[in-house]
């Protein structure tokens, strides 16, 4: 049998699966690959021309790396890069641990009905928009009407202008991020736990393993690969931040920028006046390229220690 024939046989055998992939594939090509042509914008001084987008793009003059300058020219370059990476590292570590803990706890609940209720409650914040979350938080942290300052007042303490205290915001933002996203990630892990054969647990129980030992020696090893995939995906986005979390939740308060300004919010704010599409494209390209490099690096490291678990 020639190689070609093998390929054809494989295709025929997998037609059903390929058809299932097709919509996603078309979506990927249309919305993720075709727009990549727009990367050219990052190197052009965009100018409108009669005849639509492609004509404008064609006629715009090249400008080298000029569109990237604003990202590095300011003294903020270091702060926003540091903030973006540190927040994402904290989010990856705490988010993974908490999501795993929730998933394990939910899977051990004997009352399925209650488990579903808890799951829904934990899942719910994921569907709130950041604007709503921002104002919910204001309800707690408002200087004169907030619940927190109200409580401080009861103990006879001075009220605090929370939106003027950059030091506390790394904790607040990390907490809010966990509260909003942990439930969602937990569902993914929970689904994987449900797929583990119960016989492992029965065998472990017969060997005298308690709940804790079952978790450590049965559940986690089964989730190991999934965790690596999830972490790898998150690492690829380490240079991009959740815009809503860092813009809406601190209410875009200027005094907090030292600890809340990340690449995405900086780009949005600094281009508010000029609205230059070439510069926004440049920023996006920069984030993607660094994310790509990081994914490759981390994958390589994983490959070195555990060939089987690497993504590619």
């Amino acid at each position, binding site marked *: 049998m020639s190689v070609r024939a093998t390929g054809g046989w494989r295709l025929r055998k997998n037609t059903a699966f390929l058809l299932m992939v097709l919509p996603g594939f078309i979506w990927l090509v249309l919305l993720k690959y075709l727009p990549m042509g727009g990367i050219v914008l990052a190197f052009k001084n965009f100018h409108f021309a009669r005849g*639509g987008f492609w004509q404008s793009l064609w006629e715009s003059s090249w400008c080298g790396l000029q569109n990237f300058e604003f990202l590095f020219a300011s003294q*903020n370059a270091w702060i926003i890069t540091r903030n973006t990476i540190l927040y994402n590292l904290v989010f990856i570590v705490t988010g993974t641990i908490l999501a795993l803990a929730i998933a394990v706890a939910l899977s051990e609940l004997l009352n399925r009905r209650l488990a579903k209720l808890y799951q829904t409650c934990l899942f719910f914040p994921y569907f709130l928009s950041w604007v709503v979350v921002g104002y919910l938080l204001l309800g707690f942290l408002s200087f004169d009407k907030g619940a927190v300052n109200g409580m401080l007042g009861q103990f006879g303490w001075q009220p605090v202008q929370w939106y003027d205290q950059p030091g506390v915001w790394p904790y607040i933002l990390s907490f809010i991020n966990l509260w909003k996203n942990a439930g969602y990630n937990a569902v993914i892990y929970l689904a994987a736990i449900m797929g583990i054969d119960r016989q492992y647990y029965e065998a472990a129980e017969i060997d005298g393993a308690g709940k804790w030992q079952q978790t450590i020696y049965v559940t986690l090893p089964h989730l190991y690969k999934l965790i690596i995939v999830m972490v790898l995906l998150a690492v690829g986005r380490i240079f991009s931040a959740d815009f809503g979390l860092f813009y809406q939740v601190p209410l875009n308060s200027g005094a907090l920028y030292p600890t809340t300004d990340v690449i995405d919010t900086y780009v949005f*704010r600094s281009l508010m006046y000029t609205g230059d599409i070439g510069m926004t494209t440049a920023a996006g390209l920069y984030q993607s390229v660094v994310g790509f490099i990081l994914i490759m690096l981390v994958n390589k490291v994983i490959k070195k220690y555990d060939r089987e678990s690497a993504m590619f």
Partner: protein
Amino acid sequence: MRAAGLARMLAVLLVGAGLLLAGGCQPAVEEGTPDNPYRIVWYTIGTPQKDLKLVEARLNEYLREKIGAELDIRMIDWANYREKMNVVLISGENYDLCFTASWSNPYEQNAMRGAFYPLNDLLDRYGQGIKEALDPRFIEGAKINGQLYAIPANKEIGQQVVYRINYDLMTKLGFSLSDFRPLAGPDSLRSLAPYFQKIREQYPGYTPYAIFGNMNYLMGDMDFILANSGLPGAVRIEQGNYKVFNQYEDREFQEYFRLYREFYEKGYIAPDAAQIRDDQSIIVSGRWGADYAGYQPYADNIWSAAMNMKIVSFPEFRPIVTKNSVMGSMMAISINSRRPDIVMKFLNLLNTDPYVRNTIQYGIEGIHYQKIAANRIEFLPGHANYEMPGFSLGNLFITYLVPGDPDDKWERFREWNDSAVSSQILGFHFDHTPVTAELAAVTSVMNQYGPGLFTGQSDPGVALPKLNQELKKAGLDRLLAEQQRQLDEWVKNRRQ
């Protein structure tokens, strides 16, 4: 076999998508006649109205006969307009006409990037009526390097900051308008302090001075190069002095921040004002003492009606015609419009023909309003389905008077416009492309320090030196030097 079919299907899909993105071509037909009218696609700002299509159809009957055109009006809500128009412009959509201003779908930035059709020739050929109707300063002020890219709406031409007072509260506390000092700059604001103090003492739940962290209103005796942004770069109003300076280092300008701080510390300003950019709930509740706003003749009546409480006001400065004020509401023709000549004919009608102008603003007679005099209308219940923002739809001076409007409204507008002094840099538009990186960094610094300063949350003694130091690091000197260079060139060219 099936795999090949699959591949073919994919290929067709991709090519199809490519064509869609590239934008299909349309065959050329003779357009612009009553039988084959040209369809004018018009994007405008405001909450979409239920009866828009109904009014549009009525107008189209008239426009088909008159200029061989039809309207296809697309309204986009206030908050989304800027972003949606950005997408429309960049995608190169074939629209014809759009609302533009200094504060949304920004005129200067878009015109300089070539998004709008140059109008000088079209205006001469099809827009004679516009030239006669508008105060010439509107057109001169909006021209960029001698070329006009949008038609400003004929309305109040100047900008004048006034302090608005909650009348009932003022009289209850024993004050009258004569207790405050008009036309005195920062001293006008200071004259409100005793009133604020009384509110604080007798109505603790009230906000005496209801301002928020916006950076664009406060004016001083100067005009700003980057209009409506709060960004550094200012020139004095007085004639002959073209020195560009950073207003945040200006003594008089700084005086406002000291006042804001004093007011903040005494509890006259809401403690969260810097974070809450715009809170209408305080204004609507009536639990406030004063704020500031841009004035136009009889504005007190409009405000009183809109807020359902009596409002009086006194000015901080005389009215000044700045490029910001002439760019308050404009209409531009797209660079991609296939028939800019017909669109200009429509703009001419919109600015001169009372039937077209009033139908677009007030709807259909007998459904949305009824006439009670030659120039005055009353609203019918149908009005609720058609409430358009009049200022964004062209010449206001030919619109009907509505209940509450005095008979001499438009005469007073003309008088007020005539009394307004022109800024000496009216008509100068800054091209930011040589300093984009600096401008981005400066914008970011202003966003960090501005809201705190403009609400008194930050101590100007600390924050102002810090701000100016950070601005310098961000490239302020290069930004100001470029502004000065372009301004000098503009002054030189104008003298010739």
